[in-house]
């Protein structure tokens, strides 16, 4: 099976400082890859560079499009980048308030990407928005409420609905459950696992929470100081860590 996303020797530098350095991985359709590491280890930088939101300092990212052609993200024009981000990709931010449009209703938030794709039928948009609210366990009767009237967990679920509504093939998620309490986290993770399976989408998820990786990801990458120190099957990494840093990370998880 051919990969969906091919990352080779990817680096992003902030001036002299390293954001991420020489990262390579393949992502296959339907696969969920977790990137774990402490804060400042370059996880988010890697995610944003792979999603073409930041320019790569060196290395390449290639994406296998729906039409079968490989696309080199370096050579992407701004118009194509936006089209890709709108039609084939999704991006879920850590803070839902960054990813949502707060001054319009929940329904408009979900329907925005559809309208950007040219859907111009109000009844249909509404129907789809309702369906998605239900899928992410938000009461569809709250479709006309402002996202500011929602709790943090609901906002995050709304952001997920808004991102997945166009059925993207590839989703980038930047700590989607950070800052939420444990029970809400569990529900969102459950939801994500279900949606990823249902829609067969591929996802790259950044997290500092090893339990999240264990629950969702088949493969995990461990980062430290901008570099990937260990990569492999999640269970293997968590149960039999090889690199000293991974060992430290795994042993520092509180067990109750």
């Amino acid at each position: 099976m051919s990969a969906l996303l091919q990352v080779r020797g990817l680096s992003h530098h902030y001036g002299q400082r390293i954001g991420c350095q020489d990262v390579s991985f393949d992502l296959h359709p339907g696969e969920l890859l977790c990137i774990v590491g402490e804060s400042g280890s370059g996880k988010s930088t890697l995610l944003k560079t792979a999603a073409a939101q930041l320019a790569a300092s060196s290395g390449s990212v290639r994406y296998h499009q729906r039409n079968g052609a490989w696309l080199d993200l370096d050579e992407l024009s701004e118009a194509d980048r936006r089209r890709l981000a709108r039609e084939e990709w999704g991006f879920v931010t850590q803070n839902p308030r960054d990813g949502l449009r707060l001054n319009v209703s929940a329904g408009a938030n979900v329907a925005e990407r559809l309208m950007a794709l040219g859907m111009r039928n109000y009844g249909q948009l509404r129907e789809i928005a309702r369906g998605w609210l239900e899928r992410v366990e938000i009461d569809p009767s709250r479709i006309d409420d402002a996202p500011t009237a929602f709790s943090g967990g609901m906002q995050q679920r709304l952001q997920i609905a808004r991102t997945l509504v166009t059925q993207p093939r590839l989703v980038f998620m930047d700590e989607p459950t950070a800052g939420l309490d444990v029970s809400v986290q569990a529900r969102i993770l459950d939801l994500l696992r279900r949606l990823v399976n249902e829609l067969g989408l591929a996802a790259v998820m950044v997290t500092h929470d090893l339990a999240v990786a264990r629950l969702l990801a088949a493969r995990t990458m461990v980062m430290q100081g901008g570099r990937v120190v260990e990569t492999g099957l999640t269970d293997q990494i968590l149960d039999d860590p090889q690199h000293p840093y991974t060992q430290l990370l795994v042993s520092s998880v509180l067990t109750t």
Partner: protein
Amino acid sequence: MTSNYNFAFLDENTKRMLRRALLKAVAIPGYQVPFGSREMPLPYGWGTGGIQLTAALLGPDDVLKVIDQGADDTTNAVNIRRFFARVAGVTTTERTTEASVIQTRHRIPETPLREDQILVFQVPEPEPLRTLEPREAETRTLHALADYGLMHVKLYEDIAQYGHIATSYDYPVLVDGRFLTSPSPIPKFDNPKLDHSPALMLFGAGREKRLYAIPPYTRVESLAFEDHPFEIQRWEHQCELCGADESYLDEVVVDDLGSRMFVCSDTDYCGQRRAEQAA
């Protein structure tokens, strides 16, 4: 004409700059062209954009009409008309049919315009996406990529909140199938008059330093949803002065007991109809 001023107040270099910007605007219908807006002897928001465009357009033979909300006799209209009579010495008129240049705030005259007329709009906010996207760099990118899904988010919100598209003025239009454009705060009643208009339409925003144009006979569509098509306002009343039932009506409170009457907002149109009826 007061001889202490250059013809039409602005110096020739400024008028030249404005005309170059106007030519560019006509060449790219609906595209907002930046220009070096000057201080004018009236405050921002009173028509500094329109007045600069008019100054750049006027020649000694032009006949100028100025309307404010359709009326020729309101403060803004009277002042601007008197201003140009003084600094350009041009003939002014209240008759739509006699004018060669019409500067307007918030209305298009009811009388159909001709090919030899130019309509100049005063625009407070030239960017239709501004309420949804505050970043100028971003709105420019959206225009460059013709990425206008955002505008429908606003219309969606209208229907979700009010059951219909409640935007009743400054209703967004797509010019020549390409640029999303603000028609200035004219009532959406006037939007159909923009489509394939024989007269040249120019828009000036003085504070925002942008001007744009809708050239004659250009396609202008008002945005809408398939199942919520564009509609103009309708009244159950007729004009109580001239009896018109197809013009844009103002509701006027006439005493402190709550009595009110509906009259044409276009004073020249109403006056002409009454003169005809009297004859």
